[in-house]
């Protein structure tokens, strides 16, 4: 009689555990993502290099006709309030990093480079080094250095 009760209890425990194990997914994330098939097809290892811009040779002047040079300060102007895209490289082939505001002042830290018929300068905001990128000189004007640069 006692042996029968123990056997019945063990069987019930086994059944309950089995139902619980089937009801709980092994990994909720896998269950969520299983809603779609996700495939990445690799590319050949040979890759192209970016083209479309030129680096000036040492014989080229490093001060442009409008007076812009490395170390100078410039201001964005002529965008009719729309601002100017500062890009990750010296050409419109490169994606914009952020939008410089009309009248925003930057320090010129590199350039000039030629790309897409524009002259490009690498600008850094004097108050926020994270606001930096390449800008076309068409929308830049030379200004005096700010007096309160840290």
């Amino acid at each position, binding site marked *: 009689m006692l042996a029968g009760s123990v056997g019945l209890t063990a069987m019930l425990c086994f059944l309950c555990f089995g139902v619980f194990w089937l009801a709980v997914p092994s990994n909720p994330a896998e269950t969520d993502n299983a809603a*779609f098939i996700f495939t990445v097809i690799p*590319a050949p290892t040979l890759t192209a290099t970016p083209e479309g811009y030129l680096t000036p040779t040492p014989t080229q002047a490093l001060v442009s006709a409008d007076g812009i040079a490395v170390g100078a300060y410039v201001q964005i102007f002529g965008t009719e309030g729309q601002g100017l895209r500062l890009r990750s490289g010296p050409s419109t082939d490169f994606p914009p990093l952020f939008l410089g505001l009309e009248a925003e002042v930057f320090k010129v830290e590199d350039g000039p480079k030629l790309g897409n018929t524009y002259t490009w300068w690498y600008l850094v905001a004097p108050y926020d080094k994270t606001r930096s990128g390449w800008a076309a000189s068409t929308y830049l004007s030379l200004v005096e250095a700010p007096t309160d640069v840290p």
Partner: protein
Amino acid sequence: MNDVRPVQIRANKSERILGIEWSDGHSSRYPFELLRAGCPCASCRGGHENMRAEPDEEVFSVKLGDVPETRLRKIEAVGAYAVSVEWEDGHHYGIYNWHYLRALCPCEACRQK
């Protein structure tokens, strides 16, 4: 359209195309250039004040070419609502949710809506 979800996502690095088959039967093919130009992160959109649920119209006419910025390094599912993309220039902040991706579909039918 809010309930539309991908049933298959395929990133082809050779063709530089991300293909999505949607639950409503629509197929989208996104050139990597478009995906990068339409990166929805705050940095690419010019600040948090410019963040919207749909892409800017101008991203459909941007030509970036085959540069590190448009070469896909990695794409991963973000939960069950989006994918994140990392590019070869290291940029990896864009999270493309289903709604945004569907609005980014460059096919003629979607662009005329």
